[in-house]
C-alpha cells in the first residue's frame, strides 16, 4: 500500500519563516516528493491548534505518515508523536525535520537556506515512508534498592528509602559505614562535631528493619535493567562470625600485632591486625586483616581466638557471594584525596611536618592518634605557626583542572581549630576564597576577626632551607602575595595541604560495572547537569554525593535524599516503559560469528550455544545501534534506525547531488539490433 504522507512546515513565528520561504517549500514538497498528499505551513505547529490540524488530517485525509518540519526533535518530538497517537496513528510513524536549529537560525543566505531545507525535508519524507509501528514494553519495578557506599550520602539515601517502607541493601567496602565524614573532627561552618551528628544516623542504619547492611563487601557484578537488576555481592571474609560476635572488643585488645592504619587514620595512626576502624563503627563486628595477621603470616598466634568469650573467631571463613534482586541502584561511592606526593615541592613525604587535610582531621579528632592534640610529627611539640595551602592538586592543569569546592571552608575550619587549640599563628595561602553557601561567608568573616592571616598567592615551594634569620629549623613557605605584589617567605612549624577531591581510583571500573559513564576527570556523569543531577543515562541507576563531583556534606545529604526520592517515585508507580528503539537479530541470517558479543557495554547480547546464534535482550538494549553497524552478515536490525531508513534518508539528503549513473554503469540504449 502506498503511504499517504502529510508534511507540516512550521513558521515558528518568524524564526523559520523569516529565513525560509515556507509556503514555497510546502508547495515544492507536495509537487515533488513521493507520497506527499498534503503539505501545509502553519504559524506555530506546536500550539494546540497546530496539533489539532495534524489530528484532523490523519482522521479525515487518512494520513499514514506525518513529517513535521519545525524545531529540533529534542524539543517537540514528543508533542507531535502524541498528536499522532491521539488520532490513532502509531507515534513512531511521525518524523521531525529540524528547520529552525539546522537551517533558519544558522544560515544567513536565504537561497542556500531554502536549498538546505529542501534536502532535509526530502530526507525526512523518504525516511518516514519506511517507518514501522513500534510499541514500548512495560516492565514491573522491584521495590528493593541497592545502595553502594555507606558514606553520608549513601546513609541518607538508605534511611529515606527505609523510612518510606522500602527494603534497602546497603553495601560498604570498608568494615564500617561512615565514610570520610566519620574521619572528620568538626564540620563547617557550625563547628558541630562530625561524630555527634553522624553516629546517630549510623546506628539508625544499623538497627533499621528495612536496611540490610553489608559492610566489608563489594559489588562484583550487576546485570539486568531498570526495575529488574541482579547484583552479585562479595562479602569479604571477616574471619569473625557475625552471628556470635557481641562486639565486646576483647580480640582487639589482645591482638599483639600493631600496624599503621592507612585507611581510616590515613597513615597517621595505628590499629591492630584485628580491628574496627573506630569505636562507634557500624556494624560493631571487627575484621581480621589477613595481610597483617600473624596467624595468617606464620601459622601461629590465634590470641584473639583464645580470648574470645563467644568463640566467634573463625579462621576458616571464606569470601561469600550473595545474589540480590533490586529494582534500582544508588551509587554513592565517594572520593579519594589527591596524592600530595605528586607535588614534591610542597614537601609532603619529604618534610616531616607537612600534613594533608585528612591527616589533620584525624589529628584534631579527640578519638584520633593524638587524642585531639595538634602536634608536629614528633608527636609532642605544639606548633607555634601553621600554614594552610589551598588548591593542592586542584585548579591545576597538571593535576585536576576543577575546584574541589570544600577546601576553602576546610581551611577556615582548620584555622579556627588550630588557633583555638594551640594559639598558633595561622596563615592561609589561597588563590581565591570561595565560601559560597549559607553562612559560609560569615564564617570567613569570623576567621578574619579571629586573626587568621590570608595571603593571596599560589605557593611556589615549601622548603627547610633556611636563608634568613628566624628561618632555621622552620618550614619556609614561599609565595608571591599578589595583593601586595611581593614575594613572601613565611617560616612556619607546620604546613597543611588542602589536597584535591578526586574520583575514586577505581571509578572508571565501577562505572563500567554499573553501566554508567564518567566525565574526562572520572566523576560519574549525571543525566543533566542542572535539571537531572542525580539520575544517570542508565535508567534505574542514580548517583549521590561526591562520586558525582566535589561537594560538601549538606550537598551530599541533599543528593542522597534526592536520589531516594527518585527511586521512591519509580517504586510507587510500580512499572516502567521501555523504549522500543532497540536492536534485534534475525536468527536465520546470524551465523554465530560472535563479532557483536563484546560490543555491548550493557551486556544485552547473549550467545546461544545450542543454536549457535547470538541474541539481543530487548530490555537491556539501549538502542545505540553499534552492533547493528558492526554485524558482518547484516543480520542485526536497529528499530527506527534500520539500514533502509538511514539509506533512504541519505538518498533524500543528497537528492540534488550529481549522481552520475548511479549503481549501474551506463548501458547501451537502444539495444543493439543484430543484422537479420
Amino acid at each position, binding site marked *: 500500500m502506498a503511504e499517504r504522507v502529510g508534511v507540516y512546515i512550521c513558521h515558528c513565528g518568524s524564526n523559520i519563516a523569516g529565513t525560509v520561504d515556507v509556503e514555497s517549500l510546502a508547495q515544492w514538497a507536495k509537487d515533488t516528493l513521493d507520497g506527499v498528499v498534503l503539505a501545509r505551513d502553519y504559524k506555530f505547529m506546536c500550539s494546540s491548534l497546530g496539533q489539532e490540524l495534524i489530528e484532523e488530517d490523519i482522521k479525515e485525509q487518512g494520513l499514514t505518515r506525518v513529517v513535521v518540519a519545525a524545531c*529540533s*526533535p*529534542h524539543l517537540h518530538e514528543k508533542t507531535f508523536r502524541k498528536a499522532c497517537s491521539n488520532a490513532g496513528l502509531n507515534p513512531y510513524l511521525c518524523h521531525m525535520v*529540524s528547520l*529552525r*536549529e*539546522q*537551517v533558519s*537560525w*544558522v*544560515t*544567513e*543566505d536565504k537561497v542556500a*537556506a531554502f536549498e*538546505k531545507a529542501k*534536502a*532535509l525535508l526530502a*530526507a525526512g519524507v523518504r525516511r518516514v515512508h519506511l517507518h514501522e509501528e513500534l510499541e514500548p514494553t512495560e516492565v514491573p519495578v522491584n521495590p528493593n534498592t541497592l545502595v553502594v557506599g555507606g558514606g553520608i550520602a549513601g546513609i541518607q539515601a538508605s534511611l529515606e528509602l527505609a523510612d518510606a517502607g522500602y527494603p534497602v541493601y546497603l553495601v560498604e567496602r570498608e568494615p564500617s559505614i561512615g565514610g570520610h565524614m566519620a574521619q572528620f573532627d568538626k564540620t563547617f561552618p557550625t563547628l558541630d562535631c562530625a561524630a555527634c551528628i553522624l553516629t546517630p544516623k549510623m546506628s539508625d542504619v544499623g538497627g533499621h528493619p528495612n536496611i540490610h547492611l553489608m559492610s566489608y563487601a563489594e559489588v562484583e557484578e550487576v546485570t539486568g535493567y531498570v526495575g529488574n537488576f541482579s547484583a552479585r555481592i562479595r562479602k569479604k571474609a571477616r574471619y569473625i562470625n557475625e552471628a556470635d560476635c557481641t562486639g565486646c572488643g576483647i580480640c582487639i585488645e589482645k591482638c599483639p600485632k600493631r600496624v599503621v592504619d592507612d585507611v581510616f587514620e590515613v597513615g597517621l595512626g595505628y590499629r591492630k591486625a584485628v580491628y574496627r576502624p573506630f569505636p562507634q563503627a557500624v556494624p560493631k563486628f571487627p575484621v581480621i586483616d589477613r595481610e597483617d595477621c600473624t596467624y595468617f603470616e606464620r601459622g601461629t598466634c590465634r590470641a584473639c581466638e583464645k580470648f574470645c568469650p563467644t568463640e566467634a573467631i573463625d579462621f576458616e571463613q571464606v569470601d561469600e557471594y550473595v545474589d540480590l534482586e533490586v529494582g534500582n541502584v544508588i551509587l554513592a561511592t565517594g572520593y579519594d584525596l589527591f596524592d600530595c606526593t605528586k607535588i614534591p615541592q610542597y614537601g609532603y613525604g619529604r618534610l616531616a611536618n607537612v600534613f594533608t587535610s585528612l591527616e589533620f582531621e584525624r589529628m584534631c579528632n579527640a578519638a584520633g592518634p593524638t587524642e585531639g592534640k595538634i602536634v608536629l610529627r614528633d608527636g609532642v611539640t605544639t606548633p607555634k605557626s601553621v600554614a594552610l595551602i589551598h588548591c593542592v592538586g586542584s585548579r591545576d592543569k597538571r593535576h585536576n583542572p576543577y575546584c574541589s569546592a570544600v577546601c576553602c571552608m576546610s581551611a577556615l575550619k582548620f584555622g579556627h581549630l588550630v588557633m583555638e587549640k594551640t594559639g598558633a599563628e595561622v596563615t592561609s595561602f589561597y588563590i581565591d576564597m570561595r565560601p559560597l553557601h549559607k553562612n559560609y561567608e560569615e564564617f570567613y568573616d569570623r576567621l578574619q576577626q579571629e586573626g587568621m592571616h590570608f595571603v593571596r598567592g599560589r605557593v611556589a615551594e615549601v622548603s627547610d632551607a633556611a636563608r634568613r634569620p628566624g628561618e632555621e629549623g622552620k618550614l619556609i613557605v614561599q609565595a608571591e602575595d599578589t595583593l601586595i605584589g611581593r614575594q613572601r617567605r613565611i617560616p612556619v612549624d607546620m604546613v597543611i595541604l588542602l589536597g584535591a577531591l578526586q574520583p575514586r581510583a577505581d571509578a572508571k571500573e565501577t562505572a*563500567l560495572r554499573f*553501566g*554508567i*559513564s*564518567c*566525565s*574526562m576527570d572520572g566523576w560519574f*556523569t549525571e543525566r543533566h547537569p542542572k535539571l537531572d543531577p542525580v539520575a544517570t*543515562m542508565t535508567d534505574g541507576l542514580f548517583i549521590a554525593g561526591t562520586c558525582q563531583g566535589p561537594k560538601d556534606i549538606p550537598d551530599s545529604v541533599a543528593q542522597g535524599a534526592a536520589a531516594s526520592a527518585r527511586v521512591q517515585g519509580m517504586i510507587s508507580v510500580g512499572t516502567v516503559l521501555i523504549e522500543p*528503539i532497540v536492536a534485534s537479530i534475525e536468527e536465520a541470517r546470524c551465523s554465530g560469528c560472535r563479532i557483536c558479543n563484546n*560490543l555491548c*557495554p550493557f551486556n544485552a547480547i547473549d550467545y546461544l550455544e545450542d543454536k549457535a546464534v547470538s541474541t539481543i535482550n530487548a530490555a537491556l538494549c*539501549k*538502542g*545505540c*545501534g*553499534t552492533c*547493528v*553497524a*558492526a554485524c558482518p552478515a547484516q543480520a542485526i536490525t*536497529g528499530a527506527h534506525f534500520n539500514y533502509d531508513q*538511514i539509506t533512504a*534518508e*541519505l*538518498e533524500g*539528503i*543528497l537528492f*540534488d*547531488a*550529481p*549522481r*552520475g*549513473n*548511479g*549503481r549501474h*554503469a*551506463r548501458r*547501451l540504449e537502444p539495444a*543493439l*539490433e*543484430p*543484422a537479420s
Partner: protein
Amino acid sequence: MSEQTFEPKIVAFLCNWCSYRAADLAGTARMKYEPNIRILRVMCSGRVDPTFVLKAFALGADGVMIAGCHPGECHYLEQNYKAMRRYEMLSHTLKVMGVEPERLRLQWASAAEGAQLSAAINDMVEKVRRLGPLSWAGNWSENGYHLEAIERLAEEHAEAMEVPA
C-alpha cells in the same frame, strides 16, 4: 560548475546525545555556519556503518563528517570508540581508493560545544571546497568511444553475415 561557485555537499552523521545537541545549541545561539552541511541524526556515532559513508560518496556527497561524544563521555559508555576504530579502518582504505583524507572527518563535540562544532563544520566545508567536487560516479563513466567500438563490431558481424555462404 566553475571552481569559484563550487559548493560542496557534506553529509554529517551526528549522535543524538552530544553532537546533535551541540548542533541544537549552535542553532539556539544563532551561530552562523556554512549551509553545505546536511545533518542526519543517529542514536550514537557507533551506529555509523562504513557503508553509509561509502554510499554517501557514491550518491554524490563531497565529504562526510561523523560526530560523536568525546572519548570517555559516550552516552552509551564506549561506543564512540568503535566509531573511532571504524573511522581509522575506513580512512586506511579510502586512502588507497584515492579519496582525499579531508573528505572524511571524525569530530568529537559535547552537548556544550556548539561553537566548536560550527567551527569544525566551517573548517571542513572550506577544506572540501578547496579540494573541489568529488563526483564519484564520474569515475566509472567510460569516455564514450567504446560505444563506437561496439557498434562497429555489430556492423562488421552484419557485413560478414551478408556474404553469401
